């Protein structure tokens, strides 16, 4: 399959596919594995391109180009295959494993908590574990408590892992390429509702560095910070706020770990106010972490209490009316910003 060399508008799913395809062409050490990622491709009668390519179709067609040796369907054995990806990385491959939903972390945490993230350190720097774990986060699909989680706080709490979560198609391609090439284990979080979102994506090689937040919209009155879908919410909220005379600077975090503290502090220094939008649960979550970091490193620039729009301390409910109330959205962000901006320093 030819890959465009010029920028064009494609979906996030296509951008991810393109990143993997280009990297696999360049590096024979890359293998991909996961449940149904070839997708029945081992069945004789089936044309490979008709196969699933993962539940969201991200890996569609890859088995056709790279064969069953490098595109591996797995049994429902997350502990074994995520662990195998770690073991393969430590012995010379550069595997990309798909953990279908991040909630399935429950079935394979050890491979990430005690093996993948720690081997290098425990072995005194003598192991390298260049594995990428792609996984789905987020609500909005009415998938309920186990299939709508946003678990990057747990991943981020584990030293040795890097944690990435793009908010648009170009970053999806660029950050996935950076993740695959990274020599450390990277957890790459894809939001369940965003696969069909389109955006302009550079053709050919495209890299967005891990660990660098983007100022997605410059502004002067307040800093609005989001990641993955909440960065989109923040941008939408900023549009509304602009009409009401509030000029918000929007930071798209892009990487959760390592955290780009400097870009955040720089912005807070300028605006004096901070509202963080995060879909994860709040207790020991990402929003409060950033708020705490700023309360420690940027305290004197803060002119008002840090605002936070997060999920409540509850599992994700099924019923659409409940899930909608549960999730952050631009309206909630607008309200939080207005409150923050109304507070005297």
């Amino acid at each position, binding site marked *: 399959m030819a890959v465009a060399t010029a920028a064009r508008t494609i979906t996030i799913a296509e951008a991810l596919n393109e990143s993997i395809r280009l990297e696999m062409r360049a590096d024979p050490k890359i293998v991909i594995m996961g449940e149904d990622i070839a997708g029945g491709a081992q069945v004789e009668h089936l044309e490979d391109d008709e196969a699933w390519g993962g539940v969201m179709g991200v890996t569609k067609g890859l088995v056709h180009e790279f064969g069953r040796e490098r595109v591996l369907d797995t049994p*429902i054995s997350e502990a074994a295959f995520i662990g195998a990806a770690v073991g393969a990385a430590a012995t010379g491959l550069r595997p990309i494993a798909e953990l279908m939903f991040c909630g399935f972390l429950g*079935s394979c945490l050890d491979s990430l908590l005690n093996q993948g993230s720690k081997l290098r350190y425990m072995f005194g720097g003598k192991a390298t574990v260049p594995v990428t774990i792609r996984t789905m986060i987020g609500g909005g699909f009415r998938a309920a408590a186990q299939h709508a989680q946003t678990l990057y706080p747990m991943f981020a709490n584990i030293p040795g892992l890097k944690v990435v979560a793009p908010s648009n198609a170009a970053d999806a391609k660029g950050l996935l390429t950076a993740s695959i090439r990274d020599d450390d284990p990277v957890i790459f979080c894809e939001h369940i509702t965003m696969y069909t979102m389109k955006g302009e994506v550079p053709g050919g090689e495209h890299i967005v560095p891990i660990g660098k937040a983007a100022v997605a919209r410059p502004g002067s009155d307040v800093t609005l910070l989001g990641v993955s879908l909440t960065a989109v919410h923040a941008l939408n909220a900023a549009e509304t706020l602009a009409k009401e005379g509030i000029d918000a600077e929007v930071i798209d975090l892009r990487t959760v770990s390592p955290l780009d503290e400097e870009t955040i502090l720089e912005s807070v220094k300028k605006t004096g106010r901070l509202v963080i939008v995060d879909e994860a649960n709040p207790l020991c979550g990402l929003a409060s972490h950033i708020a705490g970091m700023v309360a420690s490193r940027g305290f004197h620039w803060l002119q008002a209490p840090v605002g936070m729009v997060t999920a409540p301390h509850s599992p994700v409910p099924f019923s659409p009316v409940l899930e909608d109330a549960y999730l952050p959205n631009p309206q909630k962000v607008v309200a939080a910003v207005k409150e923050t901006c109304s507070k005297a320093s």
Partner: protein
Amino acid sequence: MNLSQDQLRSMYRTMVSIRNFEETVKQAFAKGHIPGFVHLYVGEEAIATGVCSALRASDTITSTHRGHGHCIAKGCDMNSMMAEIYGKATGLCKGKGGSMHIADVGKGMLGANGIVGGGPPLACGAGLTSVVTGSGDVCACFFGDGACEQGTFHESANLAAIWNLPVIFVAENNGYAQSTPASYHCAIENIAERAASYGIPGAVVDGSDVFAVHEAAVEAVKRARAGQGPSLLECKTYRHHGHFEGDQQTYKDDLYKSVSQGKDSIRDFRALVTQHGWFTSEELDAIDGEARQAVEEALAYAESSPLPGVEEVTSDVYVSYP
């Protein structure tokens, strides 16, 4: 067969209720009335029916993402089930769980489970409760062929064996885990052979034969209740529809499709009981009609039920919260 007329009638009613319920869910889903994921049990009705008809009310079951059939067979109310699948306040879980978490603990239905392999440890827990309280209840643990590759199955089978727990592991082998054939994901053909790893009885039965399933389940229940520990029952079956609604099923090969079409537990039941003269076609048709009507009522109930109030988002997280 040691089944009374009443038992036979009840089993038939369960099977057709499940079939009707699922086909109705399928249509409602296609119309966009049902949110989220639904996984249908059509083709596998005889398993839930055969096993649950061997249980008593106080016995428990654990289920899977494909849980509607287990619910109905364990006696859950179809109105509240359908309302749950619709995300309504009147649902079994107040609309908070949906199809993948439908549950009725009061009826001994310990929940559909969105985690493949989530059930077996819970089933051991239910078995332990039985042993410690001396209730004599057993727990039937339903899980798919794909779930047999989860570590929890192995650990739980061993634990149940050494603790001698009254658990019946029921593997519903429908040949696929999503798009992945069992012939690929499982190193051996018969899951039941894994019973040997735990020193427990293992049996393969035709999962479209409700009598065969029932008989094997009765045997396993008898052992479990008598304190003789767990069993593993593999039911070979066929999933008539896609993995979830919306699945194009391109991965199903011709053999599977044709065998699958030929397997119909309800048709076979009808043939057998009418041949033996236990029931007339008319009697069975009447049950069909009742079941259809009950499902229609359930649908109407679900559609007309109110949505949950948004205050429900944060309730039911804890029993007590300071």
